[in-house]
């Protein structure tokens, strides 16, 4: 239902950009959702160190291990922003697209490329240590150069693996918050 609302709003915003629909979408986007706490839990770990910069540097190394290029850093605020471009095609999807295209005489579309973005934010927690929160999102383009998906990446396993690598890198245990 929510997807439908977004689709309808997106098409309406093309011809009536000042419509209340856009503002309603924006209001929802800027409202804390009930699942925000759970998301924060999945995306955050606490480490028993008060050295925030060391943790930030270790996070940067892990991002490099994962093939990300650093776009922006602001150590005074505990921030790293990084991204990478990767292939987004899958053989199954391409075959499916060609079969449907051949059968219906419509234009064939399949995913070609994606840009994956990550931001890491560290925060001192006083004597109890330092927290690290990482968030991922991606934009996917199809063979016509159109954006076919833009979304947050919420799969918990992704975050578990990131923190496992970070934990190894700093020789410290990552605790849930």
């Amino acid at each position: 239902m929510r997807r439908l609302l977004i689709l309808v709003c997106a098409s309406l915003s093309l011809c009536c950009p000042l419509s209340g629909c856009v503002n309603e979408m924006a209001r929802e986007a800027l409202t804390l959702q009930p699942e925000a706490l759970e998301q924060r839990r999945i995306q955050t770990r606490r480490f028993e160190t008060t050295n925030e910069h060391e943790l930030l540097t270790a996070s940067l190394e892990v991002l490099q291990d994962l093939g990300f290029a650093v776009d922006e850093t602001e150590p005074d605020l505990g921030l790293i922003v990084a991204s990478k471009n990767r292939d987004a095609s899958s053989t199954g999807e391409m075959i499916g697209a060609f079969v449907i295209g051949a059968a219906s005489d419509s234009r064939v579309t399949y995913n070609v490329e994606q840009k994956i973005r990550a931001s890491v934010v560290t925060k001192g927690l006083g004597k109890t240590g330092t927290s690290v929160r990482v968030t991922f999102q991606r934009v996917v383009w199809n063979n016509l150069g159109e954006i076919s998906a833009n979304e947050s990446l919420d799969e918990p396993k992704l975050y578990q693996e990131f923190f496992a690598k970070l934990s190894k890198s700093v020789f410290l245990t990552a605790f849930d918050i």
Partner: protein
Amino acid sequence: MKQWVLSVALVAALQGCAPVHDQVLDTSETQTQLQMREVQSRTFETNDKERTMRAVIATLQDLGFVLDKADLIMGTVSATKLDGYAMRMTVSVRPRGEGKMVVRANAQMNTTPVTAPAPYQSFFRALERSMFLAAHSVD
């Protein structure tokens, strides 16, 4: 379905593209520059710029944004949220007088500026929770 597509196309054709001048300056017939600032700004009773900025960053993360940029000296934070749409937001933090910090947010949804008060009210409500401080309207 066909009628729906035709009506959307008709509205689009009648409206045409806004002049470049209006797009660059985002001129509005309904809101003055001062009104817009009021909608997008709040003051918090604190001297601590860094703490305010870290609260802004935490709030944006809670709202599902991925950060693009932050600068402590300039007091700016930019972030993007992708959820079927692309929302970009810049938040600036600057001290005003003794013990006050002005936080201003401005957002765009895809290619449209967000001008209504309600989205900003929601954002500042979330920021209040993260700051443990009340947000006041800018005098």
